[in-house]
C-alpha cells in the first residue's frame, strides 16, 4: 500500500467551471417541453398550431449542438493528455453502467411482452383463475399469439364494448411472425438479422485491426459496419412501410401492434444512435487521424454499444418474430 506515495500520483483531471451543463439543460428541457406541447395539441387540442414544433426542434438542435461540443471538448482534453489512466477507467465504468441502464429499459418492454403472452392474455381469454371475467366483459374473445382479434373486436367493436377505453383497436391482417411469411426469402426480419449479426462481426474485425495498429483495416471494416447499420435501418423502414401499407399492422392493432412497434421501434432508435456513434468514430479516424492501438475509448465504447443493440435484436428476433 505504501508503494503509491502521493508524489507519484497522477492528478485526476477535474475540469474548470463549464457552461456545458446549463446549455444541455436548456436544450433538453425545451425539447421535452416542446414534445409534450406537440402531443397535447394533437390529442387534446383544437388543431390550432401553438408553435410547439418550433420549441421542440429548437430544443433538440440546441441539445445536439451542446452534446457535440461536449464530446469535442472531452476528445480535445484526451489529446491534450489531461486524462490519467484513472480517468479513463471512469469512462469505462460510466459506459458500462449506461449500457446496463439501457438493458433494464429493454427488459421493461420484454417483461410487458412476456406478461401479456403468458398471464394477462390467457386470463382475458377466459383461461385459469384469472379468466372468470371473460364472459362478463369480453365474451367470445379467445387468446392467441399473435393476437388476430382484439377483445374489443370480439365483443363487436367499440360501440358494444362494456367499459371505457382509449380508442379503437383494430387487429392486423397479417402479422410479422415467421409463420405468416409468404416465403422465407421474402421474410425481412431474417435479412435484418443477417445484416446486424454480420455488423457485430465486422466491428470486431475493425477492432482487431486497430489493436494491430492497422488503421487501413480499421477504417475499411468500420466503414462496412456503418454501411450495414444504415442497411438495417433502411430495411426496418421498409418493414414499417409494409406493416402500415399492406399488413394493416399499426400501433392501434391491440397489444400485438403495441409490443411489436415499441420493441422494434426502440431498438431501431438505438441502432440509429449506434450507427451515428460509429459513423462519428469513422470520421474521427479517417478525417482526424484519431485513435491508436492503445488509446481508442471513443471507438471501444461505441462498439460495446453496437454489440449491445445486436444482442437486443437477437432476443427480439426470437421473442417478437419467431416464437
Amino acid at each position, binding site marked *: 500500500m505504501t508503494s503509491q506515495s502521493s508524489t507519484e500520483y497522477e492528478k*485526476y483531471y477535474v475540469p474548470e*467551471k463549464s457552461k456545458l451543463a446549463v446549455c444541455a439543460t436548456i436544450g433538453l428541457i425545451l425539447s421535452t417541453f416542446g414534445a409534450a406541447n406537440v402531443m397535447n395539441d394533437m390529442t387534446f387540442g383544437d388543431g390550432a398550431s401553438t408553435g410547439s414544433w418550433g420549441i421542440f426542434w429548437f430544443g433538440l438542435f440546441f441539445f445536439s449542438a451542446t452534446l457535440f461540443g461536449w464530446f469535442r471538448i472531452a476528445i480535445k482534453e484526451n489529446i491534450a493528455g489531461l486524462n490519467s489512466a484513472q480517468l479513463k477507467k471512469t469512462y469505462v465504468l460510466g459506459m458500462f453502467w449506461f449500457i446496463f*441502464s439501457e438493458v433494464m*429499459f429493454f427488459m*421493461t418492454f420484454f417483461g410487458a411482452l412476456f406478461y401479456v403472452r403468458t398471464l*394477462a392474455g390467457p386470463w382475458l381469454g377466459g383461461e385459469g383463475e384469472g379468466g372468470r371475467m371473460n364472459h362478463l366483459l369480453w365474451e367470445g374473445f379467445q387468446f392467441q399469439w399473435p393476437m388476430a382479434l382484439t377483445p374489443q373486436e370480439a365483443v363487436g367493436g367499440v360501440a358494444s364494448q362494456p*367499459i371505457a377505453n382509449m380508442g379503437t*383497436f383494430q387487429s392486423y391482417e397479417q402479422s410479422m411472425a415467421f409463420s405468416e411469411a409468404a416465403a422465407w426469402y421474402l421474410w425481412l426480419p431474417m435479412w435484418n438479422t443477417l445484416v446486424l449479426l454480420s455488423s457485430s462481426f465486422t466491428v470486431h474485425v475493425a477492432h482487431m485491426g486497430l489493436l494491430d495498429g492497422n488503421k487501413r483495416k480499421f477504417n475499411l471494416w468500420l466503414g462496412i459496419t456503418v454501411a450495414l447499420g444504415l442497411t438495417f435501418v433502411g430495411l426496418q423502414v421498409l418493414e414499417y412501410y409494409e406493416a402500415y401499407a399492406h399488413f394493416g399492422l399499426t400501433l392501434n392493432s391491440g*397489444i400485438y401492434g403495441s409490443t411489436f412497434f*415499441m420493441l422494434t421501434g426502440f431498438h431501431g432508435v438505438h441502432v440509429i444512435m449506434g450507427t451515428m456513434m460509429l459513423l462519428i468514430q469513422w470520421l474521427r479516424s479517417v478525417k482526424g487521424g484519431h485513435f491508436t492501438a492503445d488509446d481508442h475509448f471513443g471507438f471501444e465504447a461505441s462498439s460495446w454499444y453496437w454489440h449491445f443493440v445486436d444482442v437486443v435484436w437477437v432476443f427480439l428476433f426470437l421473442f417478437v418474430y419467431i416464437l
Partner: protein
Amino acid sequence: MGAHHHGPAKGLSRWLFTTNHKDIGTMYLWFSFSMFILGGAFAMITRAELFQPGMQLINPAFFNQMTTLHGLIMVFGAIMPSFVGLANWMIPMMIGAPDMALPRMNNWSFWILPPAFLILASTLFMEGGAPNFGWTFYAPLSTTYAPPSVTYFIFSIHVLGLSSIMGSINIIATVMNMRAPGMTYMKMPLFVWTWLITAFLLVAVMPVLAGAVTMMLMDIHFGTSFFSAAGGGDPVLFQHIFWFFGHPEVYIIILPAFGVVSQIIPAFARKPLFGYDSMVYATAAIAFLSFVVWAHHMYTVGMPVAGELFFMYATMLIAVPTGVKVFNWVTTMWRGSMTFETPMLFCIGFLVLFTIGGFTGLMLSIAPADFQYHDSYFVVAHFHYVMVAGAVFSMSAAVYYWLPKWCGRMYNEAMGKTHFWISFVGFNIAFFPQHFVGLAGMPRRIPDYALQFADFNMISSIGAFIYGASQILFLYNVVATIVAGKPTSDAKTWEGAEGLEWTVATPAPYHTFETPPQVR
C-alpha cells in the same frame, strides 16, 4: 491545471457553471429543502381539509391533485435529491477523492431537476388541473381518465429519471474508481457503502420507470393498448411495472438513511460501529430482495395464490437483514459513552420510529391480513413512519452532524434539540392515530370521511401542523448558523467522529484531497 489553488468563482456563474462537488451538493440540498417545503405545504392543505369531516376548504378534485403532488414532490423532489446532495458533499471527502468522477455531468444531473419540477408544479395552473391519480399513477386513472397535464407529468418523470441515472453512474464511478490508496471496499464508511448499493438500484430501476411512463404516453397519444384490456393489454401490467420500480425505490430512499445513521450513532456512542461486515451484507441483501417483492403492493389486485405466497414470504425475509441492522445500531450504543446532541437525538428517533414502521410493514406483508389493511390509512401511517421518521429524520441528523464541517460555524444546540422534540412529538401526533383509523377502515386518498373517524383526524391534523411548523425552526436554525453561527475551526467537530472528512480543515476548503491521503 497547475498547482494553483482556486476558490469559488464570484456571483451566479459559480452555481450555474460549477463542477465542484461541494457546490453541487449544496445546490441539491437547498433544492430538496425547497421541494420539502412545497410538498409539505400541499400536505398541510390536505390535512386542513381533513381536520373535520365534510368538505370545507377545497373540492375533491383539488384534494386529489394535492395528495398526488405531495407524494411526487416528496419522493422525487425532496428525499431523493437531498441524499444525492449529501452523497455529493460527503462521498469524495469520505473516500479521499478530489471530486466526483464526472464533474460536468454532475452539474448537469442537478440542473435538469429544477426545470423538471417547475414543469410538474406548473400543471396546477393548466386546463384540467394537475395530475390527480396519486403518486403511484395507476392506469387507467393516469391514461384513460387522466387530465391533459399528464403529458407534462410524464416528461418531467423522464427528465428526473435521467438525472437520477446520471447521478448514480457518477456515484458508482466515484466509489469504484476514486478511493484513496488503502481505502479498500471493506474499509469504506457505511454511508459510502449504502450509497454504492443505492446507486446500483437506481441504475437498475429508473429505466423501468421510464419504460412505464413511455407506455402511458403511447397509450394516451398514439393508440397503443399496453394498459387497456380492450386491445389485449392489462391495467395490472402497469402496477407490476410500476412496483418493479417502486419497491426498489423505497430502498433507494431508505438505504442512504441507514448509511447516515451508521455514521452518526458510533460518533455519539464513542464506539466503533458494531458488526460493520454484517451491515454491508445486510444492505446488499436488502437490495437484492427488493427486486423480488414488488407485488406485495398489489395483493388485492387478483393474483394467483402462488404469486401471493411467493411475494408474502419473500417480503417477510426482508425483516431479517433489516433486523440485523437495527440490532447492530442498538448494540453499538450498548455501554457506549453516549451523549445526546441533536444529530444523535434524530438518530435515536429514527431508530425507534423506523422500527415501528418496519413492524407495520411486516403486518402489511401478510397477504391475507393485507386484504383488510390495503389502501387504508394504516398504509399511510406505515410509510410515513419509514419515509418521514426514517428518511427525513436521518436527513435532519445529517445536516446537524455535518453542518459545522460544511460552513465552519456551529448551529444552536438548544434550537436543534427543540427542533427535534417538536418534530418527534408532532410527527407521532400526526401519524400514530392514522394506524387506528386505518385499522378501523378509513380509506386513504379521500377528502371526506365517516363521522367516527373525526376525533383521530383532528388530532392527526394538529400533529401535522406541529410537525410542519417545526421545519420552519429547522430552516431558521440552518440559515442562522450559516449567517451568524459561532465560528469553529476544529477539524473534528464531534469528539467521537471517525472518517477522512474529519481530517480536513473546518470549514472544508473548496478543494479537498487533490492528492489522495494514505489510508491504513
